[in-house]
């Protein structure tokens, strides 16, 4: 098998020869092939007659629940490898624990997929090396670590903690099950219980683990241990109730969603043997890393793909502590490195304070922007309604003059008309005041209009309702109506049906008592947004009122105003949602980026600590008379530094942003959207924005919102810089495509970038702005790099700064 693989060097060496003399080359190639067979004396898997036979690669899999289960879980993944790594045929080989170890010892497999505990044994014994780590899918969660839970039934009279287990009956999977026993073993040992000596009875039930849970709940044993998520899964299936279970020694780990009693350990690794060719191992690693988490292959295995290999030191530590597996000598390590803890706490606290400050600043910004927009809108509305009012008043005055001429002798009639005019004038002024009030929200505004109209018309009640097809939904209302906000009816039951049928104002007596109450008179008018009837405005009373043409005009005017208000609030809502989304992305990126930066900053000194202490220990070990206590302390120091690294990593995973949906994004459209978002600020600062497109722009693969985030960051910086530059500032955005890359160039006429600034530009927390956080360009670079692109900053020839973003035009490669 493996000989067959090594031969690939010889075989390809023969075929690589230049083809100047075909007959001779052919002979050589034949000899090469002949040789390939002779020295190893192994058959070369004769499959197709002409086709080059694929080399067989064997993947040994730990079949802890039988070969059939292992096949159904992993066959798709192994087939995927055959497909993804051309030239090789991958074969699945299920084994038990011992069988797999023998297969590794004999070199009968090329790759091994087994649990972390067994992996550590194979690593120590046979030089097996992990190449990737499994991402386990449990329900909606994707996890790269797992642990075990130790539990008893909730009403057990005497077991409250792990230490109480002594003398009781305990059930686990098997002595060699990593999650099904060994993890719990360590927890028992830590509390002074030797499971083989101190328990009343230790029973091993094998797989599936459900049997252990059932045995504990049925009282056949007092307590047991299973892998994390087993309890939650059985509860979800309805097999048990979680409130019947008492978890012992419960632990909380940030970001880990399941009941837990032990430390967390890395998931199953996929590993190679010592003799597996380097190139093949790399191709397999790449194939597994690029396996789509949502692909059928990953789903069949119950995984969410694979990730780069985790550190299996915690597993080693467990085996060392239990004096099993590859470790013959026990260690009882002393807590010397406690002083490490305050230092780490201080960092974590500092990070949390920064994150909170960031969130607070963003929220204040948004509120301010909303207030400014609101005020501007109100000013516009005020001007519009002043014009409208003036027009109306002059029309009314003309009416009055005509009435005066026509009905000069009929004083009573004139008085009535004057009264009506005064009333309508008064109501128009009042309505205008309502419309123009700057600090009213839209619902209050509409309710006040209804009140004004009721008062004006001497009506008892008014209602504004949304109409969508057959559904009539109350938006707001005044007066004694039998309704509530959000109440829905079928429109056919209501007087509003006649308004919709006619599409016009309806003034009519009511004969039946409708569901809104017993009224004798109804007046209603449709409210249009654009051409569509979106709402109806209705009033109810006991007297026939609002009958004069002037009243009707007023009513129609109110309907128009309400229509305009609705249209405006819809547009506002859309803009607000977009801005909110952008701000959300900004916040997420900022927090994630800060965590990443801090992690990087901390990882460097931690790495140095590990190196220094590890190097010192190794030097000391070569000398005579080394105090074993010192050696233990130094080992412990290394382990603690590694633990600090893991805590930082957890923290970062916890705050890490959700992945963004990538799609083919039109760069031109993203530029237009970003320009629109900053246009207002540019105008306010008197900076001109110029967009220039150089030729066709192909789409790039990105998330639209992230690309906008990049452009908005660069444009805002450029506008601020251009404003500082004095004179007429200008920001120029150019975009084009060259050599498979889309480039976007943002240049400004600002003070430019002196060399010391330019060098530190992309560092986190570096800023030249008095109020800046120094995260904008850092986030921008992270996004651009995540999209496979590059960002560069330079000085423009005529002064000012230039930022160029380059993004690859990606066809979806392998």
């Amino acid at each position: 098998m493996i000989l067959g693989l090594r031969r690939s060097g010889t075989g390809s060496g023969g075929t690589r020869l230049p083809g100047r003399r075909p007959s001779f080359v052919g002979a050589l190639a034949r000899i090469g092939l002949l040789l390939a067979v002779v020295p190893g004396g192994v058959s070369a898997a004769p499959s197709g007659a002409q086709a080059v036979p694929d080399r067989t690669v064997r993947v040994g899999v730990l079949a802890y629940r039988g070969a059939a289960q292992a096949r159904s879980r992993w066959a798709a993944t192994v087939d995927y490898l055959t497909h993804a790594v051309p030239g090789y045929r991958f074969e699945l080989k299920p084994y038990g624990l011992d069988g797999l170890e023998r297969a590794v010892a004999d070199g009968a497999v090329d790759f091994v997929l087994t649990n972390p505990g067994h992996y550590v044994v194979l690593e120590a014994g046979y030089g097996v090396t992990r190449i990737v780590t499994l991402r386990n899918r449990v329900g909606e969660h994707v996890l790269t670590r797992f642990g075990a839970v130790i539990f008893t039934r909730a009403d057990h009279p005497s077991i409250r903690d792990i230490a109480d287990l002594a003398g009781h009956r305990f059930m686990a999977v098997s002595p060699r099950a990593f999650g099904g026993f060994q993890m719990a073993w360590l927890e028992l040992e830590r509390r002074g219980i030797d499971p083989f000596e101190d328990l009343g009875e230790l029973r091993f039930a094998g797989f599936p683990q459900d049997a252990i849970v059932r045995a504990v709940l049925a009282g056949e044993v007092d307590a047991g241990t299973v892998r994390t998520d087993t309890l939650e899964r059985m509860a979800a299936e309805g097999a048990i109730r979680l409130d019947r279970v008492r978890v012992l020694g419960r632990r909380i780990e940030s970001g880990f969603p399941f009941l837990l009693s032990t430390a967390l350990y890395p998931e199953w690794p996929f590993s190679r043997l010592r003799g597996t060719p380097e190139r093949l191992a790399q191709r397999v690693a790449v194939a597994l890393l690029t396996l789509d988490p949502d692909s059928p292959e990953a789903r069949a295995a119950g995984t969410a793909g694979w990730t780069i290999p985790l550190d299996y030191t915690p597993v080693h530590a467990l085996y060392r502590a239990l004096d099993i597996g590859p470790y013959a000598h026990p260690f009882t390590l002393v807590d010397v490195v406690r002083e490490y803890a305050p230092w780490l706490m201080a960092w974590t606290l500092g990070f949390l304070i920064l994150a909170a400050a960031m969130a607070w600043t963003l929220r204040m910004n948004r509120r301010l922007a909303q207030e400014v927009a609101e005020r501007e809108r109100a000013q516009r509305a005020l001007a519009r309604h002043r014009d409208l009012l003036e027009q109306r008043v002059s029309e009314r005055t003309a009416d009055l003059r005509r009435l005066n001429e026509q009905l000069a002798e009929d004083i009573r009639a004139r008085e009535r008309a004057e009264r009506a005019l005064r009333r309508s004038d008064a109501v128009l002024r009042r309505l205008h005041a309502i419309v123009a009030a700057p600090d009213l929200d839209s619902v209050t505004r509409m309710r006040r209009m209804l009140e004004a109209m009721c008062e004006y018309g001497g009506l008892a009640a008014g209602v504004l309702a949304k109409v969508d097809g057959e559904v009539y939904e109350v938006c707001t209302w005044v007066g004694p109506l039998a309704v509530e906000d959000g109440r829905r009816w079928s429109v056919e039951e209501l007087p509003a049906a006649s308004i919709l049928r006619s599409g016009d104002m309806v003034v009519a007596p009511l004969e039946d008592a409708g569901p809104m109450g017993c009224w004798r008179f109804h007046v209603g008018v449709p409210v249009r947004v654009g051409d569509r009837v979106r709402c109806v405005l209705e009033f109810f009373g006991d007297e026939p009122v609002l009958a004069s043409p002037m009243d009707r005009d007023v009513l129609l005017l109110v309907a128009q105003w309400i229509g305009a208000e609705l249209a405006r609030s819809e547009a506002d809502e859309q803009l607000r949602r977009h801005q909110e989304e952008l701000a959300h992305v900004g916040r997420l990126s900022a927090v994630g980026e800060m965590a990443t930066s801090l992690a990087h900053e901390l990882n460097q000194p931690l790495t140095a600590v590990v190196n220094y202490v590890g190097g010192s220990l190794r030097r000391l070990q070569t000398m005579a008379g080394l105090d074993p206590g010192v050696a233990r302390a130094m080992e412990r120091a290394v382990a603690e530094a590694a633990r600090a690294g893991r805590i930082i990593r957890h923290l970062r995973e916890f705050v890490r942003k959700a992945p963004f949906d990538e799609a083919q994004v039109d760069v031109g459209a993203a530029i237009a959207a970003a320009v629109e978002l900053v246009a207002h600020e540019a105008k306010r600062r008197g900076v001109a924005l110029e967009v220039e497109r150089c030729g066709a722009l192909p789409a790039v693969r990105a998330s639209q919102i992230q690309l906008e985030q990049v452009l908005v960051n660069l444009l805002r910086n450029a506008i601020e810089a251009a404003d500082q530059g004095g004179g007429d500032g200008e920001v120029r955005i150019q975009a084009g495509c060259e050599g498979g890359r889309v480039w976007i160039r943002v240049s400004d006429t600002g003070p430019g970038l002196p060399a010391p600034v330019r060098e530190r530009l992309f560092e986190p927390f570096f800023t030249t702005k008095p109020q800046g956080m120094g995260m904008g360009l850092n986030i921008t670079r992270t996004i651009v790099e995540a999209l496979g692109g590059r960002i560069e900053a330079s000085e423009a020839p005529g002064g000012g700064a230039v930022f160029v973003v380059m993004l690859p035009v990606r066809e979806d490669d392998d």
Partner: protein
Amino acid sequence: MTESLVVHVVDDEASVRDSLRWLLESVGLRVCTHADGEAFLAEYRPQTCGCVLLDIRMPGLSGIEVLERMAQDGRRVPVIVFTGHADVPLAVRAMRLGAFDFIEKPYSDSLLLERVQRALSMRRETRDREVALEETRRAYERLSARERQVLAGVLQGRPNKLIADDLSLSIKTIEVHRANLMQKMGAHSLADLIRRVVQAGIEP
């Protein structure tokens, strides 16, 4: 061939460089440190380079770019890439460029040393093979023109008699040439001779 191989460390942070030297030298390895990718590429010699420990994120030339340059040179020196966090796309790119392994910082010192030793033993193997091929090529250079003609005939699988006819020589002479060239090429058998020639890519 037994001269000791050098472990190259490329990291922009002095404390990491210095501490790695301290750790690697504690197990008797030869170490050479570089503050950036440019300096490393300028200074390293593939003949003595055992393996490279490369930080992925550095100012100037990034770790990926260093890998790209090394891949262009076609040198198969094992490179262990360090990263601050589990960045899968970056890992895939590094693997495609032939990185030997990918380790997250901070790591455990024994894990790192084990990976370094593994990389060195692999490098030793490939280097031994390279040396053997070089010897075969030099041996071939020492053959006379006649011996090369005989070798070509042998490689085509022609019996001595036909080679003798082709070259208008006696079978006896061919046998003498054949014995000489076997000795000069250091081959124990016909199969051994063919293997050496084919592996060294020699075309008589």
